[in-house]
């Protein structure tokens, strides 16, 4: 704070910027966006792509604004002929090795490279054309496809994977042969990628995309023999709007339900029901472990990226994972058992689609031991982005849709379920139920604010029924690693831990709408999206999972008690150690 400010001029205008700012940051103060491609704040400051070049008076040649610090009296020019020519040349060079098939590219319209080419009038994309390497796609993994022919070698994906402490992709070879791949150029399915999709949301182009499964969903909808049921994860309602140009953090729950009906789904349910059910089972499992000397700390298992991480990197600690299926899988399991019976429909005619913030959900629904009815609990998992494209391609005018309500009873949920979408939300929801179950008394307030917020690791101790319950919350596998190392070393005295694979939790999942780096670098997407979830929780009449009438009904009619034999058969699963490389 004591640092003094620096005075400089940008395009002739006086600017005052904190010492240590880059030219890029200083320019934003007066509303000038210098284009960037490789720059990701804090995680990829490598000054490699050279699109952000600006002129600095007295400097020899142009400088890279993304890493060049401001200095007292500096004079910067961001838009001279020289600068514009340099940027255009950089783009032409990138295009010389680029597979320019914008017509059908998934990222068309949302591609950072395409946008810059348009802005700088790159009208001769073959300016530097020469011989090019044709790379094979890597579509080996369940969740994503890598296409190096559209890669601009900005290394943002590598930085994203590194900041998850996974590092299964990197830049290999050198010179003209440099390319992004896994060690020994193995398929992604043969290395310990956790399917988090953080590389996808950070890629400026169409070089990494989720594996699009929307065609199978359209086909099911158009098949008259199929009863197609969709359910949407907690966070989708606060992110889907972004794909239609709406403000970050807009709650579009009503429009989303309306759009899903117009797409032709037979029932539109809320995964929040599955989340409430998860809390019932998980809180019960936790109390059982405490009572019976089971493995502690118990760790949540809702995030399939995190679960896969644990199986690859901490196979010795699998016993700590809760045996509860995730909300997506619980929801599907209940649809194909209880709900199918209620409706008198053979589950083999039911097709369940989950709309998820997460690419790892595409891996999760194909796991073993995820088929309560003998059929997969969930048939297809789509990301928020795939849903947005389906809505677009069906000609549905999203922004003008009326607000509609979910179908019953699997569309009924409490505020506890809504906050699952943010880091700390599952812990808070579980505490609301566990504490009331333990004490038999109503909580004075359902808020456990200590576990909220975007900090990577949060800790709290609650005094409940004569016992100190110590909890921890981590998001992003880099932070998970810190807690797991502590457990492995026998230094952790927690009872209950929530872990989400993505930094910030599902609101920042790898399946969420892509915001360009210029937005990601200067806005905290995680807290902007999460704030809307907490707002929704606050405004709901019921905020504790065990108070939900739909939850009471399913236990009365079907499951009996939390943790019952039937509950175990339908709602719980198992895990297996996985090797790091094959």
């Amino acid at each position, binding site marked *: 704070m004591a640092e003094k400010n620096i005075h400089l001029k940008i395009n002739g205008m006086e600017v005052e910027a904190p010492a240590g700012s880059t030219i890029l940051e200083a320019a934003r103060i007066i509303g000038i966006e210098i284009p960037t491609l490789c720059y990701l704040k804090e995680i990829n400051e490598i000054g490699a792509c050279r699109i952000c070049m600006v002129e600095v008076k007295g400097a020899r040649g142009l400088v890279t604004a993304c890493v060049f610090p401001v200095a007292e009296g500096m004079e910067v020019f961001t838009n001279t002929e020289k600068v514009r020519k340099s940027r255009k040349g950089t783009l032409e060079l990138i295009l010389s090795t680029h597979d320019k098939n914008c017509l059908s590219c998934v990222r068309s319209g949302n591609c950072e490279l395409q946008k810059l080419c348009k802005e700088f009038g790159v009208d001769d994309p073959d300016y530097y054309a020469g011989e090019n390497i044709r790379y094979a796609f890597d579509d080996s993994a369940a969740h994503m496809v890598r296409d190096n022919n559209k890669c601009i070698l900005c290394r943002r994906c590598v930085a994203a994977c590194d900041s998850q402490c*996974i590092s*299964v*992709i990197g830049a*290999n070879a050198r010179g003209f042969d440099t390319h992004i791949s896994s060690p*020994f150029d193995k398929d992604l399915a043969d290395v310990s990628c956790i399917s988090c999709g953080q590389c996808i949301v950070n890629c400026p182009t169409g070089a990494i995309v989720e594996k699009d499964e929307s065609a199978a969903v359209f086909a099911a909808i158009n098949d008259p023999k199929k009863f197609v049921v969709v359910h949407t994860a907690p966070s989708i309602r606060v992110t889907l709007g972004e794909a239609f140009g709406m403000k970050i953090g807009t709650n579009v729950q009503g429009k989303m339900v309306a759009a899903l009906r117009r797409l032709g789904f037979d029932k539109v349910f809320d995964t929040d029901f599955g989340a409430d059910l998860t809390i019932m089972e998980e809180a019960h499992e936790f109390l059982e472990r405490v009572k019976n000397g089971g493995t502690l700390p118990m760790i949540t298992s809702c995030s399939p990226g995190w679960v896969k991480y644990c199986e690859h990197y901490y196979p010795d600690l699998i016993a700590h994972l809760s045996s509860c299926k995730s909300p997506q899988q619980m929801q599907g399991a209940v649809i194909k058992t209880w709900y199918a019976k209620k409706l008198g429909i053979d589950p083999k005619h039911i097709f369940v689609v989950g709309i998820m913030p997460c690419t790892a959900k595409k891996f999760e629904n194909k796991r073993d031991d995820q088929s309560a009815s003998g059929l997969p609990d969930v048939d297809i998992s789509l990301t928020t982005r795939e849903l947005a494209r389906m809505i677009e391609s069906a000609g549905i005018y999203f922004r003008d849709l009326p607000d509609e309500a979910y179908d019953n009873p699997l569309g009924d949920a409490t505020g506890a379920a809504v906050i699952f979408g943010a880091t700390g939300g599952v812990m808070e929801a579980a505490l609301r139920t566990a504490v009331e179950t333990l004490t038999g008394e109503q909580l004075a307030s359902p808020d456990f604010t200590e576990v909220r917020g975007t900090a990577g690791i949060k800790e709290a101790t609650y005094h409940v029924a004569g016992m100190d319950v110590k909890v921890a919350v981590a998001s992003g596998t880099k932070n998970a690693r810190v807690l797991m190392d502590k457990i492995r070393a026998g230094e952790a005295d927690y009872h209950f831990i929530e872990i989400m694979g993505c930094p910030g939790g599902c609101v920042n999942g790898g399946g969420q709408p892509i915001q360009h780096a210029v937005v990601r670098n200067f806005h905290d997407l995680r807290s902007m999206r999460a704030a809307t979830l907490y707002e929704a929780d606050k405004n709901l009449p019921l905020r504790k999972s065990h108070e939900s009438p739909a939850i009471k009904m399913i236990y009365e009619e079907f499951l009996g008690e939390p943790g019952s034999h039937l509950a175990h058969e339908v709602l719980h699963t198992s895990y297996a150690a996985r090797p790091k*490389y094959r």
Partner: protein
Amino acid sequence: MLKKVSKLPFQGTECQAQAFADVIAQYKSDPSQLMTVMQKAQQIYGYLPFEVQAMIADGMDVPLEKVYGVSTFYAQFALSPAGKHSISVCLGTACYVKGAQAILDRITELLGIGPGECTEDGLFSLDACRCIGACGLAPVMMIGEKVYGNLVPEQVEGILAAYRDQ
């Protein structure tokens, strides 16, 4: 150039394992010594196949991809073992002009391996090199220490056969 990764099964000895363990023990607390460890591992094993890189990654507690990235970036690291007889074809200017590429192509045709690779029986490995200072004899190749000059593709088969029979 893209490096070829050996498909030959890796065979390490007890003795090599011990030497490698000593290297790791010495450097494992300092990740900045990754290059040094890789160089020493290559001295011990002759090359850096998957198994050796995985041991380096585990020993140094760095991701395997970081080791692989370094091994494919720097020319000094080999991902394929040297054969009993290492063939080196000069692609320097003088040799190239006099048809070195045809010599290289003929060897590839006969042995089924390209530059940077080793035959399955471990007998021959092949590389292309820069000028070795024997331009007067262009085109030139070396097998081990022995230099062969004024080559024409037709000679290659006979020369290789002599090594095979040794």
